[in-house]
């Protein structure tokens, strides 16, 4: 047993500095992404979430270019993009995709420019890879408190707006009639989502952070019909995928073909997908509700 455990958890796994930072930062970010993501799915804003994540590449690459910690680039551009989307009209269901698409296009255009400059001037592709596909193992320990602070902020917004967000997901009319400031609620949520995907862009990459936003939520939805429990599951599934992904990436150092290790983002995203597939199995997903319905139809 101990031998088996040794084989999986390589000696020195927990003693390794970058691994410890990755476990903390990656775990916190995954938790926030999962929790925020449940509402992304409930509100039907997955496309907006994806766009905010992709646009993060603009900020990240810009930050690399001028030599600032990419975290600030990711978060800064995310918040700006969320603001622009709101102004263009993400409130209206029909204007939503248009607003998102326009911001996404403009952002990615800039990202292309910044990444091109970054590669030409520095003659490396390091920035491109880490902006697009993450840099979990090279997060500096001093960044961790900032990551935690932003995470708490995004979590606080979602916890505070839990009920108004749910109500306006069901019907904006009901929410308005009940006195919920629907627009402000929507903007604050969009900002929380921008922060969540920006943090995930830092850990698993701007391109992949949507997976951590939407994947765990989509999986959790299959496991329970209770809203609160689904939010909790979503967060935990994200954390599980991230921690397991880090472990596998660490182990993969001795794997073929290159003996350089496989990218951690690949493992995290693949695990999210595997969890989702597992939840589709009839004996795992759809607990409760389906059976009750059959009983009712039968009786």
């Amino acid at each position: 047993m101990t031998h088996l455990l040794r084989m999986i958890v390589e000696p020195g796994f927990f003693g390794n500095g970058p691994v410890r930072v990755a476990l903390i930062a990656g775990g916190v970010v995954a938790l926030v992404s999962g929790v925020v993501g449940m509402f992304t799915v409930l509100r039907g804003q997955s496309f907006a979430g994806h766009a905010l994540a992709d646009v993060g590449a603009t900020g990240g690459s810009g930050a690399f270019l001028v030599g600032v910690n990419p975290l600030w680039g990711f978060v800064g551009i995310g918040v700006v993009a969320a603001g622009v989307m709101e102004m263009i009209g993400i409130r209206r269901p029909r204007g939503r995709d248009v607003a998102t698409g326009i911001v996404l296009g403009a952002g990615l255009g800039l990202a292309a420019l910044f990444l091109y400059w970054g590669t030409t001037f520095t003659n490396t592709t390091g920035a491109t890879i880490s902006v697009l596909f993450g840099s979990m193992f090279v997060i500096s320990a001093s960044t961790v408190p900032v990551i935690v602070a932003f995470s708490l902020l995004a979590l606080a917004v979602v916890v505070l707006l839990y009920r108004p967000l749910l109500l306006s997901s069901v019907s904006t009319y009901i929410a308005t009639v009940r006195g919920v400031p629907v627009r402000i609620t929507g903007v604050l949520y969009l900002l929380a989502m921008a922060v969540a995907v920006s943090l995930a862009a830092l850990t698993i990459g701007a391109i992949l952070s949507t997976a951590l936003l939407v994947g765990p939520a989509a999986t959790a939805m299959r496991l329970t019909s209770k809203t609160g429990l689904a939010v909790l599951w979503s967060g935990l599934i994200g954390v599980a995928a991230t921690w397991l992904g880090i472990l596998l990436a660490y182990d993969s150092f001795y794997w073929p073909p290159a003996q350089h290790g496989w990218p951690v983002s690949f493992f995290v995203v693949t695990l999210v997908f595997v969890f989702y597939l597992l939840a589709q199995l009839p004996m795992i997903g759809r607990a409760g509700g389906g059976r009750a319905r059959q009983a009712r139809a039968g009786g």
Partner: protein
Amino acid sequence: MTTGQQAATTDRQLAGSSADILAVDGVSVRLAGREVLRDVRFAIRPGEFVGLIGSNGAGKTTLLRVILGLQQPSAGTVRIDGSDRGRHAPAIGYVPQKILLDPDMPLRARDLVGLGLDGHRLGIPLPSRGRRQLIDEMLRAVGAGLFGDERVGNLSGGEQQRVLIAHALISRPRLLLLDEPLANLDIRSEQEIVGLLARIAREQRISVLLSAHEMNPLLPVMDRVVYLAAGRAASGTTDEVVRTEVLSKLYGQHVDVIHVHGRILVVAGRGDGPAEPVGEDGAHCAVQAVPDWQ
């Protein structure tokens, strides 16, 4: 003076008392230069069941929005329970026409009813025995006890209406406002929902204002009708309002009101040409073969 205006005037005289739950007085609305509502006036007393009838585009939704405070009228006033309405009137329970949830969303019927209690508050709801009992009680009251633990998006149209009614009632409003609750329901669910609302109005003395483009399902339970056509309204009992003279005046063209087996058809035309049904009202009941209500 037409009978419609007389009916309206009678309403208004009766409405003078402070017992009215809702008093709409001379409300006009202009949207983008077009007059959507003109001088609409009617009142609702406690426990009354009132149908807001009109075809698509007659101004039903706009009128409901004015009553809910989501639309500012260009003239006239709306008084709820004797006072000028603030923006958020707790006295009104509102049931929207449709909800936005997909079938697999993790929100149970009981969660939605619970949001009716405190959905506008900040923070996470704390479970308590009292809260749970209240929700259970409300689910049973609307005949939704069996599917309280089901996902809302997974319910049928009629089941969703019941849950939305429970959601609206749990905050103990004095006026229940429903936007086309019978649209997209099969005939049986339609009858059940109408019966449920009538019982709520009678037993709990909650006034019900329900918009519909089809008045026939409501005929057995409706205390009064507010008939909207081309932005103008006539209100009174069905017999007072749904008459050839009144509706012709309202529509601005001749229409015939025909009674068939306890149901009412409103059709355009003078009788010298083929009669065309007016809006969905006539078209719908012309093809509907339902046994008599009474």
